[in-house]
């Protein structure tokens, strides 16, 4: 690793993280993206905007979220201490709200009365519908028809919050197609519409903006580690689909060379089976959804369908900053299978009384793997990005239990 790299210096003004990122969109979107970039860069320096965001994060989201030393789980695993950053305790139950609160405020400050969002598992859709309701903005959520079927509870939650959920029936009828459709809506309705992208992908400035709104996770965790343990963790880990919770945790630590960083991707039924969503571990550089990044595609450049037990990781691309961190050698990305995530889910439930989201269970599994190989005085800090209530039906169905 090149120790002279300042990881806070990215992206550049074109939204590039080394060879990745950028703005690979049709001409029609260049002006709205420029308008958004200009507004966001101005607002993030505006004390009134920052104060309002801080207030919302504290009183509405419930920040700061605690870090929690999982002593029983650590003892069970044997090895390093496992510490969780408890993003599952946020309002709406995941890190997603950090970003939607931020972007919805940007929308309001830009005077856009309508917001749109794409969603896979429904978590980002719920987080968007939530902030839209609070700010009195109209909200339309695009969701793949397959995902709507898989995530009925979240669809209903969005409707209860006043959002319109539009089924997407093109392509694989999942998250990537919902993103395409939201882009099409945005192109058509750009005058009054703000597009809240749910992860650190998409064209510039989204990977930067979504990262900035989630980076509070790592900033808090870093200060909390110093306060409660008097030191930084030895390793960070988080699950990576698009990669927003992971970059949120990682970002404040990127220039701490002593801290190792490991992202856990969805290896599904195993990378060798082809049924997975591990873009960084098993994909190649390409262009998807407005940015250059690692993608899963065939030799004709067609994006391939992915598989993961967790809908939130079921995405064939990944945020460009992760692609950059991988190539720079600053972070390492590994696969965690469906079975490993399920095992971690049950262990955490039984050892610590926490039902983790299936996405986050991938990170828990990776934290246990890492801890097992480390000494007792070392620390693994793992982002527990969301709670698992939304997944109980999926888990019951997989285990043949009728609920």
């Amino acid at each position, binding site marked *: 690793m090149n120790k002279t790299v300042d990881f806070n210096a990215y992206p550049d003004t*074109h939204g590039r993280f080394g060879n990745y990122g*950028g*703005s*690979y*969109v*049709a*001409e*029609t*979107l*260049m*002006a*709205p993206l*420029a308008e958004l970039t200009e507004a966001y860069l101005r607002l993030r320096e505006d004390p009134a905007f920052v104060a309002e965001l801080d207030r919302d994060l504290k009183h509405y989201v419930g920040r700061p979220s605690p870090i929690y030393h999982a002593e029983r789980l650590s003892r069970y695993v044997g090895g390093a201490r496992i510490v969780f950053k408890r993003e599952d305790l946020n309002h709406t139950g995941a890190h997603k709200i950090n970003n939607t609160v931020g972007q919805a405020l940007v929308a309001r400050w830009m005077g856009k009365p309508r917001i749109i969002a794409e969603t896979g598992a429904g978590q980002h859709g719920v987080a968007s519908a939530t902030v839209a309701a609070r700010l009195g903005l109209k909200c339309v959520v695009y969701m793949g028809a397959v995902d709507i079927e898989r995530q009925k509870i979240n669809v209903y939650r969005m409707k209860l919050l006043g959002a319109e959920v539009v089924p997407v029936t*093109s*392509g694989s009828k999942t998250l*990537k*197609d919902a993103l*395409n459709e939201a*882009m*099409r809506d945005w*192109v*058509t309705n*750009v005058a009054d519409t703000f597009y809240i992208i749910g992860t650190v992908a998409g064209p510039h400035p989204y990977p930067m903006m979504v990262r900035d709104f989630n980076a509070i996770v790592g900033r808090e965790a870093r200060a909390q580690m110093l306060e409660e343990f008097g030191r930084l963790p030895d390793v960070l880990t988080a699950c990576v689909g698009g990669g927003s919770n992971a970059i949120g945790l990682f970002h404040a630590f990127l220039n701490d060379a002593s801290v190792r960083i490991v992202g856990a991707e969805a290896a599904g039924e195993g990378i060798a089976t082809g049924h997975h969503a591990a873009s960084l571990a098993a994909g*190649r*550089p*390409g*262009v*998807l*959804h*407005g940015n*250059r990044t690692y*993608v899963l*595609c065939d*030799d*004709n*450049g*067609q*994006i391939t369908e992915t598989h993961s037990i967790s809908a939130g990781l079921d995405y064939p691309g990944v945020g460009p900053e992760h692609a950059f961190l991988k190539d720079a050698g600053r972070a390492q990305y590994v696969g965690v299978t469906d079975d490993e995530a399920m095992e971690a889910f049950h262990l955490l439930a039984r050892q610590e009384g926490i039902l983790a989201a299936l996405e986050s269970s991938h990170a828990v599994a990776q934290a246990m793997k890492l801890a097992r190989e480390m000494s007792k005085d070392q620390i693994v800090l793992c982002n527990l990005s969301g709670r698992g209530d939304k997944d109980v039906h999926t888990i019951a169905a997989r285990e043949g239990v009728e609920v």
Partner: protein
Amino acid sequence: MSRIDRRFAELEAAGRTGLIPFVTAGDPLPEHVAALMHALVAAGADVIELGVPFSDPMADGPVIQHASERAIANGVGLDDVLRAVAEFRSRDGDTPVVLMGYLNPVEIYGYARFAQAAVRAGVDGVLLVDCPLEEAAVLQALRDAGLRQIMLAAPTTAPARMAQLCEAAEGFLYYVSFAGITGATHLDIEDIAMRVADIRVRARAPVAVGFGIRDAASAQAIAGFADAVVIGSALVDRLAGAADAADMVERARVFLAPIRAALDAHRKQQG
């Protein structure tokens, strides 16, 4: 002089508005792409835009999305598209062919390798929808090989950018008639006329107008002020479900003939 430049010079000299039909390569009949291209020429096409299927066509409406999905399901990849162009070229050395699509298939194929193969097949230009001016450095190998990079301009394009695009445009500049996706139905002709007139004064390259042109009437409305009109979704929709090659060719002829006639009935204003 490239085939594209030569063709627009001929149109200019004849005072005619160019007709640029778009079809997705491999839909409806993957083994008859070249036959379809010849049919388009016979029906009056001046330039052919051949769509390279992509799984995630963000800028396209449902008609072209579904055509792309069908073509992919038919197993059509970039090599197949290039083979079809080569086959077309063996009998037509004059009609320019522009490949239209998205960056990822070209990126995965490899830019240098693609540039060589495309030129060898007889491709004249590329329009990569998700590669705006800012990212066009990746296409240097294509330009070096002599492929024209067709740029898009849109109603949302800011004046300073428009100046850059007018400066950079080669082959022709493709003006997107409204901020939306392909295949929409409402066009504000007056607004388009005003903007295209402005662009034609500034751009060295001719200006083609596309998105939302679906029949003789809308084509004729555009013909008064554009160097060419692009017609895509409506044609793709008409071709979908063709039973065999003869049916497909006949559908193309019946659809394009009145549009060609409408364009020819309308002599272009001098730009």
